[in-house]
């Protein structure tokens, strides 16, 4: 029954992706990627990855669309037709895709209850994290407590990157000069 939903959703995603690639107006392509990330968030929901879908909604549909538009306002909004040969890129894409598919062959089946990830630490987190940490959301307790130092490092990296970008763009300096 839910196979029908999967098929419909995936075909929507396929149409969106193809249309985004074929579209000449870059603005239209940005709008289509917005739709695509809405759809992929729906898809994550169907796969039960609620937190990923949440992130996809906020980052994919929200921020990245705005960032792309910001980029477009600085550049041209029409795609330039390329006169390169398209055979080599196609070859690269196919080889990469083939390698990736080959890589998935070794992975445990989807939703296999005997897969290592479901037999080692996951049951512990699911059963004990409420009592050990006291945070209702398991993902939050993993991110903020079990691997808190890792998250701290990540946040530091992102913060540094943000500060670097701000320094490069010189946003702070302009305000000092008062010519904003």
């Amino acid at each position: 029954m839910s196979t029908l939903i999967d098929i419909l959703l995936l075909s929507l995603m396929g149409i969106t992706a193809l249309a985004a690639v074929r579209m000449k107006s870059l603005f239209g392509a940005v709008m289509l990627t917005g739709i695509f990330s809405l759809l992929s968030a729906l898809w994550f929901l169907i796969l039960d990855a609620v937190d990923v879908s949440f992130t996809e909604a906020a980052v994919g549909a929200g921020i990245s669309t705005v960032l792309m538009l910001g980029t477009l306002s600085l550049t041209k909004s029409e795609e330039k037709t390329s006169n390169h040969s398209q055979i080599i890129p196609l070859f690269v894409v196919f080889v990469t895709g083939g390698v990736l598919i080959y890589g998935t062959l070794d992975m445990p089946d989807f939703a296999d209850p005997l897969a290592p990830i479901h037999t080692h630490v996951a049951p512990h987190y699911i059963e004990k994290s409420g009592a050990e940490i006291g945070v209702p959301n398991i993902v939050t307790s993993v991110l903020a407590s079990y691997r808190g130092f890792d998250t701290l490092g990540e946040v530091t990296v992102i913060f540094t990157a943000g500060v670097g970008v701000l320094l490069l763009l010189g946003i702070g300096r302009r305000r000092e000069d008062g010519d904003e």
Partner: protein
Amino acid sequence: MMFFVTVIALFPAMFLALGRAIVGPTLYDRVLAVNSFGTFTVLMIAVLGFMTDQTDFVDIALTYALINFIGTIAVLKFFVVGDFGYEEQRDQ
């Protein structure tokens, strides 16, 4: 069963809205289509949550409703403030 039928019945609408987003012709048509598509997605998430008995989904539908709005406003703000070359935008 009820929710399954609803989800399936929402799909044609999403296909049509996607069609409008692809055809255009103006960028505002696309924004309108994306906005409608977002509303349909919100409804579909809520119904999907009921279908699979995971009512957490409703929280996500709520967030989506807000993100959809903020995204639309942000995009339109860019149109009015930033320069996108309005004449060049038409596809055909």
